Structure formats: structure tokens, C-alpha cells
């Protein structure tokens, strides 16, 4: 079997964080499995998360009219697997990653609106796998009460424009602040093992 093409999107301001350690293990797992990997490190790249007035007004325009996002579009079309690595803040992805969704999941890249159609059609049918690796400050039951909004955004909302058989994996560490070193290390090992089996 040939390797997968995996786009890893990292959204944490510090590599010296637990999320930084998660990223290292994600990349190690993927490399062990021989996958072809591209990494986007949104904070290091100083990615601009705001959908601009121009981008809003040209919401339906072809991607060729948005050269500022050419690299992002290319990455998204190239991959067959999306791996998001981020902390969960306020129940969802950090703003910088939400902004990446807002701007890059654009017309004729992620979705299409054929003339006369009333609803959008999926255009990211190259994506067959979405994996999120995330850490939560709060315990599982608080997240459940909040409604697992982040999971819904990526694994239902974004998934809807991917391949119809696209599979999801949600790999999460809850109650981060209460976890011992040993428990964190066990989580990191689980992350590497899961990603190596992608």
C-alpha cells in the first residue's frame, strides 16, 4: 500500500506546550507509517484568521481570484487525510484554526454551488479521513454538557464537504490540569500509536 497524503494543521502558540509534544508524536507516528506529510503551523506562519471584507464579498468567486490563499488551497486539494492538532478553548478550536476554516474552506475548493442549486455540494471528495488530536482543560462531563461543539464543527460540519465515506477519529485528553505526568505520557504514546495506524 502506498502511503497516505496527510495534511497536519497545528494551532497552538507554543511548541513548549503539551500540544507541542502531541505534534511531535503525531509526526513521529505518521513518519513511522511512511506517509507523505505536509505540516501547517498556523501560529508560526502568523496566519491571518479574519475573513476579510474582500473575501466575504467574493465568497462565490473562483479560488484563482484569491492568490493570498493559493498555498492553503493547494494543501487542502493535495491531501487525503486531515489531522488537526489543537487545544480546545471554549469548547471549540482556537480562533486561529476557526479562521483557517472560514477562509480556506472556500467556494470551488471545499464546496461548490452549481448554478440553480439551492444547497452546496461537497468538493473535498479527496479527503477520506479527519483526525483531531486535542486537549481539554475541563473534564469530559463538562464538555459533554457544553455540547462538544468543536467536534461538531470538524467532524460533522467540515466532514459534510469531504468524501461521503470519510472516517473520523477524535483523540482527546480531558481534565488536562489534573493529569499526572504518567497519564500525559500515556496519552502521547496513544497518539503516536493511533497515527501510525492511520
Amino acid at each position, binding site marked *: 500500500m502506498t502511503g497516505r497524503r496527510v495534511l497536519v494543521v497545528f494551532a497552538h502558540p507554543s511548541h513548549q506546550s503539551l500540544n507541542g509534544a502531541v505534534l511531535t508524536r503525531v509526526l513521529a507516528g505518521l513518519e513511522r507509517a511512511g506517509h507523505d506529510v505536509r505540516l501547517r503551523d498556523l501560529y508560526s506562519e502568523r496566519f491571518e484568521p479574519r475573513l476579510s471584507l474582500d473575501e466575504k464579498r467574493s465568497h462565490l468567486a473562483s479560488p484563482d481570484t484569491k492568490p493570498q490563499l493559493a498555498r492553503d488551497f493547494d494543501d487542502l486539494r493535495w491531501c487525503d487525510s486531515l489531522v488537526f492538532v489543537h487545544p480546545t478553548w471554549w469548547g471549540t478550536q482556537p480562533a486561529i484554526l476557526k479562521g483557517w476554516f*472560514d477562509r480556506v474552506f472556500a467556494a470551488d475548493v471545499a464546496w461548490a454551488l452549481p448554478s440553480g442549486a439551492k*444547497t452546496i455540494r461537497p468538493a473535498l471528495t479527496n479527503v477520506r479521513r479527519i483526525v483531531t488530536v486535542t486537549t481539554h482543560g475541563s473534564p469530559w462531563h463538562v464538555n459533554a454538557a457544553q455540547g462538544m461543539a468543536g467536534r*461538531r464543527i470538524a467532524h460533522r*460540519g467540515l466532514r459534510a464537504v469531504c468524501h461521503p465515506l470519510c472516517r473520523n477519529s477524535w483523540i482527546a485528553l480531558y481534565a488536562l490540569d489534573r493529569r499526572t505526568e504518567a497519564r500525559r505520557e500515556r496519552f502521547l504514546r496513544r497518539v503516536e500509536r493511533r497515527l501510525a495506524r492511520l
Partner: protein
Amino acid sequence: MHATVVFAHPDPTSYSRALLDRVVRGLESADHVVDVIDLYAIDYPASLSPAEWHAYASGRPILDDTVAHHADLVRTTDALVFVYPTWWSSVPAILKSWMERTLVEGVAFALEGPDHRLAPKLTHIRNVVGITTYGSPWWYVKLVNDAGRRVILRAIGLLTAGRARLMWHGLYSLDGRSPRRRERFLDDVERAMGALR
């Protein structure tokens, strides 16, 4: 009553902007004092900065005057009102960033005891309101996501310790709506804001 309205849309000619204007008009008609935070207009940064992340652990997470001012509004406001378009099931990045930077420890919640138990600090807020437009129809929003509503009414609502009235006004299938239907939604929103207590 004092209401703080947080608005997130880049286009001053948008339908969302018309919603904001009607929200303000409704609140003012009931003699409420209104503060509007127009995030795009003030060029609000759309991510928690690395310096802010590092400061988070120090217990003094606010580094910026604008954020400090917004935090002061949140500490005393009686109503928090969010007006935004729903993009990818949730709030625009710029609004998410506002939550991350403003609703920090010491403002929205406290972490108590050795096990960092979450203690609500928004218990003075009487109304939490979300007003949004969706591209998708109602049934799709319910089936698939509605993450914005979950963040605002559940995550923020939780920090009022159940004391606030939670209110949601959504216009679904925005693009398919007639001008009359859109106008009616504006009227409904203005009336609801005028009735806020």
C-alpha cells in the same frame, strides 16, 4: 439595564449589520444603556497571542488595554448579546478570539481548590442572547452542528450558573429568504430586544 453587544461581520452593508442596528434600536427603545463592540471596525486581532497564552498561567491573563476595557464591560453588564453570521457551524474567528481573550480566568470563571474546580463568575448577567444567520436550513443545523449556539448558550450560559435567561434568534436558509421574510426577522429581533429586562 446595561447591555454589551458584540458584533462580528466585515461588511457594513450586510444583513448582519442591519441586524445589529435593529438590536441597538430595540435596546435603546427600552432605555437600556448599550455598548457595541464592532470587532472588524476596531481591527480586533483574531487570535490569542503567544504572549497572552504564556500570561494565562501567571494568573494575569490580560495584557492589552482593549481587552481590559472589554473585560470591565463584561464584569458589570446585565446582558451579553452576540450578533454574527454563522460560518462553518460556528462563530467567525474574530468573535471566537474575543471570547478567548476576554472571557478569561478572573473574568468569566475562577478555578478553585487544588483540583481547579470551575466556578462561574458571570452570575450577574441576566440575559445571554445570540442572534445569527445560517446559510443552512433549520433541520440541517439541528442535525449537523449548531456549534455557535452551543458555545454561546451552553458554555457561556453555564458560567452564569443558570441565572441568566438564554435567548436565541436564528434566521435559517438565509440565501433563500424573501426580502419580506428578512424584514420580518429584523422586526422580531428589534421587538425582542425592546422587551429584554
